[in-house]
């Protein structure tokens, strides 16, 4: 699952930047400056709230100079991958998103194993699944978590009102304790308004899959489609068959227009999605609200700070990363850009507890997203989870495009998943 930074627009634009070569400036390996100062280059995307932290850290450590390099989401990850292959040129510290963590986790040798750098004491501070996702199968920890997305259900209270549904966020949450009741609410909405309810079947498949005890792969990296994936696939097929889906691919121009043309009334949304809604449909202020996600737990996106092993100032980089994930700084980042910390202790901090988002009808977003992130049970993501997910999502899209009947789709999904798992 991808996590687009708040500032980043459609994925089309993302590809545009990649193709035009705007992959962030070139980075030389962090080398010691003339006057004995250490330069640390930090690569990330969007705005991770580091500008103020950089100044603070440099003031406290006069011998350290921090260079921030913010680029485009996909380009930064691909750039890191290329530099790792080349063996030089990687930043001293690189952010890695959930959508890419498995890929880099399986190259753990190319990163500093934080277990050797006193990382073990951090395990108890993190959400268990967050800690596990960045850990290689042989027990190397390549990164310390910074933020998580959480996952809630954003809904249009004005459209709900027109459809005769409750609009209060607690009442709406009670409407859908599980996904079946969610689909029933959708049927009511569609019958009443003649409009579609959800944006796409894939945005139902992914949250349901994340709530299952086992995902695409078991811990021995064997594909198993009959458990979690089957459950999630059936939910998405049910929704498509009931005519709930507007069949819009996320982050595409059509999808953005869908916001403005009221083509869907609910949207599975992580914390960072609010920024996207706000940018896409600024005139819908106060028309959106947030209810809990059916099934209780969820997450979409979130990142880690990692340290490529090829760097020259590893110890200084480790110190800086540990400082960045310390509670004060994590709260500071939450206040600046709204990135939700991945350490559950911080969810009790008043800054998170009392935070209300004006655009979303003053919903207490800090509390809501923290609860969904804390409720999520850890799930092992296999080495091939990324390509397998894309393959199954494509099959769901085929059903939405009318190329495939929903009754035949599961067999195709299994076949495609097997192909992706063996690719």
């Amino acid at each position, binding site marked *: 699952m*991808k996590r687009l930074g708040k500032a980043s627009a459609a*994925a*089309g*634009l*993302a*590809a*545009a930047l990649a*193709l*035009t070569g705007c992959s962030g400036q070139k980075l030389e390996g962090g080398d010691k400056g003339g006057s004995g100062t250490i330069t640390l280059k930090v690569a990330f995307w969007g705005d991770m709230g580091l500008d103020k932290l950089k100044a603070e850290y440099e003031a406290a450590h006069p011998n350290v100079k921090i260079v921030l390099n913010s680029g485009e989401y*996909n380009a930064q990850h*691909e750039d890191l*991958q290329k530099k790792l*292959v080349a063996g030089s040129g990687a930043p001293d510290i690189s952010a890695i998103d959930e959508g890419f963590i498995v*890929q880099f986790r*399986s*190259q753990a*040798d190319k990163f500093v194993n934080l277990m050797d750098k006193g990382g073990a004491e951090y395990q108890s501070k993190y959400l268990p699944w967050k800690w596990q996702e960045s850990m290689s199968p042989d027990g190397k920890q390549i990164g310390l978590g910074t933020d998580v997305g959480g996952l809630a259900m954003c809904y249009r209270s004005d459209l709900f009102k027109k459809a005769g549904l409750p609009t209060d966020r607690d009442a709406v949450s009670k409407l859908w304790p599980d996904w079946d009741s969610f689909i029933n609410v959708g049927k009511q909405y569609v019958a009443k308004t003649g409009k579609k309810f959800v944006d796409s079947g894939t945005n139902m498949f992914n949250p349901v899959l994340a709530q299952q005890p086992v995902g695409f792969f078991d811990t021995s990296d064997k594909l198993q489609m009959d458990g979690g994936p089957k459950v999630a696939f059936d939910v998405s097929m049910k929704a498509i068959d009931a005519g709930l889906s507007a069949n819009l*691919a996320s982050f*595409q*121009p*059509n999808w953005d*227009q*869908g916001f403005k*043309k009221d*083509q869907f009334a609910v949207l599975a949304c992580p914390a960072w999605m609010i920024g996207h809604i706000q940018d896409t449909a600024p005139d819908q202020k106060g028309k959106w609200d947030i209810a809990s996600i059916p099934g209780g737990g969820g997450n979409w996106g979130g990142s880690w700070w990692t340290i490529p092993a090829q760097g020259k100032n590893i110890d200084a980089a480790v110190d800086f990363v540990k400082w960045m994930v310390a509670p004060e700084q994590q709260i500071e980042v939450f206040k600046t850009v709204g990135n939700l910390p991945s350490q559950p202790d911080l969810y009790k901090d008043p800054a998170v507890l009392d935070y209300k988002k004006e655009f979303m009808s003053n919903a207490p977003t800090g509390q809501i997203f923290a609860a969904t992130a804390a409720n999520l049970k850890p799930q092992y993501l296999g*080495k*091939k989870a*990324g*390509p397998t997910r*894309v*393959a199954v*999502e*494509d*099959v769901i*899209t*085929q059903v939405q*495009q*009318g*190329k495939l009947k929903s009754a035949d789709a599961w067999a195709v999904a299994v076949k495609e998943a097997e*192909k992706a798992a063996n*690719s």
Partner: protein
Amino acid sequence: MSLTQLRPSPHHEAPPVEPSRTRLWLYRFDIRAIPYVFIAPFFLLFAIFGLFPIVYNAVVSLRTWRLDEPDKDGWAGFANFTKLLHDSDFWNALYNTFGIFLLSTVPQLLLALIVANLLNRKLRAQTWWRIGILLPYLTPVVASTLVFSVFFARDNGMANWFLSLVGFGQDHPLDWRAEKWSSWIAIATMVNWKWIGYNALLYLSAMQAIPKDVYEAAAVDGAGPWRQLWRITVPMIQPVVVFTVILSTIGGLQLFNEPMMFDENPQSATGGSAHQFQTIAQLIYKVGWKDLNLGYAAAMSWALFLIILIVAGINAGLTKRIGGDR
């Protein structure tokens, strides 16, 4: 005999012999070696940025190199190539690439020929027209493709709006990305739009070198404009036609940007929900950077390289026939 008497005596001749030998050597060096020295930078750069990657790619294609399984590195022999032969994704991508290639190259060059023929007449604001047709070529491909992908959108797209004007797809708007034929047409349209003007200008410059009296003679013999185009113009600009055919073959078979950005989910590089429009270049990118299988991706690149060589050769041969021998 008087001439020999005018020569200086050997005694005086001796000292300048040395410099003249040097000069002779310099002269020879100038004639024989300097051209190579002047052309050398190109070949040096080509060796570094052209030849080395090709050779290195060949080496990689014979190895197992997976980024997600670093332990498995090693020689693989021709395993990657054997896998290629049985990979339905590869054949599907090859089919797509050729389909889009035919849909783009053939109309593209024909239309370019006709446009060039029109521009070759006396027109008002001639320069304006000639620069105008080059504008699509000057537009960055990413920018134009983004616009086209909105143009071919399912809901509220302009292409579907035009179709609805003629009474097609009002209830169920055409999902351009869903089927092979529609996605191919959409992508070929983008390619054609971009390259027609460029090729037309190439043809135009060649056409202007054709002597006018040939046309006059043909006109006297009763040949109409269409016949003149095919019997005089095309044969006489044949070298340029061969050049454009080879260039568009290379470009068409390496098609990447357009299908990539036309995709609903560009990051996955799958070329549609069922790989309807995944081209080989796109598949290579997916295998290398999404599936993280660099060895296999290198084998695919080499296969593509060979395919392009063969197809460009065939096309050049065919085009030469079209021109003169009939």
